[in-house]
Each structure stands twice: as C-alpha cells, then as structure tokens.
C-alpha cells in the first residue's frame, strides 16, 4: 500500500485531493475522519488512472485475465491434433483434424501430391466436404494424366490419324528429341 502525505486542497466523499511537499497533486483515501482543507493529511494513494474504475478495477482485471485464458485456450485447442484420418488411396493421404473436426494439416508420402494438397482449400467446417474435395481433385488430376498419355501415344504413331503438325505436337516432338 503506497501512502502520500500533503496539504488537503479539497475533499469529495472519501477521496481527498492533496498537494504533497514533493510537488505532486494526488488523491488519497480518507479511511477515518475526513480532513479539512489546509490540513496536512496522509492516506492511501489512489492512482489517477485506476480511479475511474473504482471498486470495479479488480473485476475488470479478473475479466481481462479470463479473456486471455479463453482466447489462448481456444488458439491452443485449434492447433492441437485431435484425430487422424487416412484415405486409402495410392499414394495414401493423411488428414489431421482438431477437436472441432477441422483439417489442420494434410500429408502424403508423395511430395508432388502433398504440394497439390496444400494448394487445396480444406478449411470447410465439415470434414466430409474436405475429403470430397481431395477425391475430386485426385480424379481430375488422374483424368488429365490419362489424356496426356493418350496424346503422347497418338503422336508417336502419326499414320493412324491426322497430320502431326495439326495435332500441335511440334514442340512435343522437339522436346522428346532433346
């Protein structure tokens, strides 16, 4: 408890305004008899910044601490893996979810697949939608892959269809030559 001593300028209820001999204008608490202006008085220092909150400053402090714990706890719970789901595909995909069933990380043994998965938006609150999105992406990539392979096969056998130039594979042929 900090005390201040000075001459009383004014009183307002239990609040006493004083001027200390060290040149500070301060407010102190009158615990007993209320002093008169001009008296020298010593009392518990009331911080100028804490004064507006008065008795509620302890409640405000407790509420602030509670908010910090709740926000901190929420952030902690969001980032801690709660369960792991594995998709039995080739290559396999592993999804880690938090307590809110939200995907917090995705991994695969195939680095290329993992990179593609990282680019996917898996922030949906429903896990099923996220899994569906991975499957759709895999299907689309597989279809692209099949198309590319068919195109290559066709270009390697030019007698079986239209002229090679028209197929637009001039560059493909060059690349292959290299």
């Amino acid at each position: 408890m900090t005390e201040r001593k000075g001459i009383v300028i004014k009183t307002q209820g239990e609040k006493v305004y004083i001027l200390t001999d060290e040149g500070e204008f301060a407010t102190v608490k009158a615990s007993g008899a209320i002093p008169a202006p001009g008296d020298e008085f010593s009392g518990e220092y009331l911080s100028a910044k804490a004064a507006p909150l008065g008795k509620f400053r302890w409640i405000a402090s407790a509420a602030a601490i509670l908010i910090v714990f709740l926000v901190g706890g929420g952030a902690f719970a969001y980032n801690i893996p709660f369960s792991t789901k594995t998709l039995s595909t080739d290559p396999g995909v592993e999804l880690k979810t938090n307590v809110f069933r939200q995907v917090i990380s995705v991994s695969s043994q195939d680095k290329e697949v993992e990179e593609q998965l990282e680019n996917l938006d898996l922030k949906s609150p429903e896990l099923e939608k996220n899994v569906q999105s991975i499957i759709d992406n895999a299907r689309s990539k597989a279809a692209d892959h099949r198309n590319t392979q068919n195109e290559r096969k066709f270009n390697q056998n030019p007698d079986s269809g239209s002229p090679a130039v028209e197929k637009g594979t001039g560059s493909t042929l060059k690349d292959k030559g290299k």
Partner: protein
Amino acid sequence: MDRNEFISINKQFIYNTAFNVCKRKLQWENDDELSIALIAFNKACDIHDEKKGNFLSFARVLIRNALIDYFRQKPNEVLLFFNGEEESDDQIFDKNSLSDFETKTENKNRAEELSELMEELKGYNIDLEELVNHSPSHKDTRDALLNIAFRCSGEKSIVDTIHRKKTLPIKQITLLTKAKPKLLEKWRKYILSLIIILSGKNYIYTKSYLNIKAGENIND
C-alpha cells in the same frame, strides 16, 4: 527584548532553515544565503501578527520563499529538486510546539491560499481533477519540470504572456530552457500551475510547503 537581541537568540533557527533549503554548510561571513535569511527573518518580525499564526512557522515561510526568490534571480547557476527526505528533527519539534490555535490558524491560511489558487487555475481551464491526472508521479520528471517552471517564473516576459494569453508559450520556453516541446506539451497544465505558484505573491504558504532544495550548480 530589542530586535537585535531577538535575532541573535534565533540565529540557530535562521541557520537551520537556510541549511534545509541550501543543503550545504553555510558560513555567516561568506554566504549570501544567510544574509537573505536574516533579512527575511527581520521582515517577519516587522509584519507578523496573530492572524498569521505561530511566529517561527511564519518566519520559516518567509525565509524559504526569500531563498527561492534569490535562486530565481540566478536560475542558470542553481539546480533545484523536490526533497523526498523525511522532516528534520527541528521541523518536527517546531510542529509539536505549535498550539492548537496556531495550527488551526496556519491551516486556515493555507486553505484560503489553495482555494484562491484553484480559482485562478480555473481561468486557465485547469481543474483539480485534471491537475491530478496530469501530475507526474515520477520524481525525476517532477524535478525536471520544477527547474523549467522555476526558470520561467523568473522571466517576466513569459509570466506576462501566461497571464495575458492564459496559455503556456511553448516556443519562448523552449528557447529559454532548451526543453523539448513534446515534454512541455505533455505536462502543460502541471508546468502552468507551478509557474503560477512560484511567481505568485499570494501563495507564500503553498510555495513554502513545497520542499524545494537547491542542488549542485548546473554549470559545474
């Protein structure tokens, strides 16, 4: 008892009061501060009456204020600070020796003075609540602002500007004290109040209550 004899009996009191302000050993033969204190004591003998309370308390007020005014005339040479030390034994003894009537008279005088001060500050749009909120709690800051206010209170042009425009002339003060405008702006209300107390002729008890001491020379 004639005046000279009375002064001679109270020489130790005069010395102690001057020593409490100057905080160094003083010599009757060499130090101006003791001459100033003697003159102030003599003045106290002239003007004291029952309304002003206990004689020695009143004489102490006059001696302290005379010394502060003396330092103000040579502000470049003296650095002031608020003394945070406990009261000396002499001061405690003097307080205990006051009768109830004398204590009440002194408190009444201080109350009247403070009430007048608050009224004057209202003219500068400063109320007590603001003053409490804009009063530095750190001692080093208060000491720095005291020296700024002290130098300003000795500069007639600044005091006149303050009374006329009811505001702090930041530029003038910056030129005089080399203080940063940001510092002056931040503690504007507190500096204004200090200048009014230090330069005002009506606030002798308040000025005397402030435990102002003289420190080492700035030029050293």
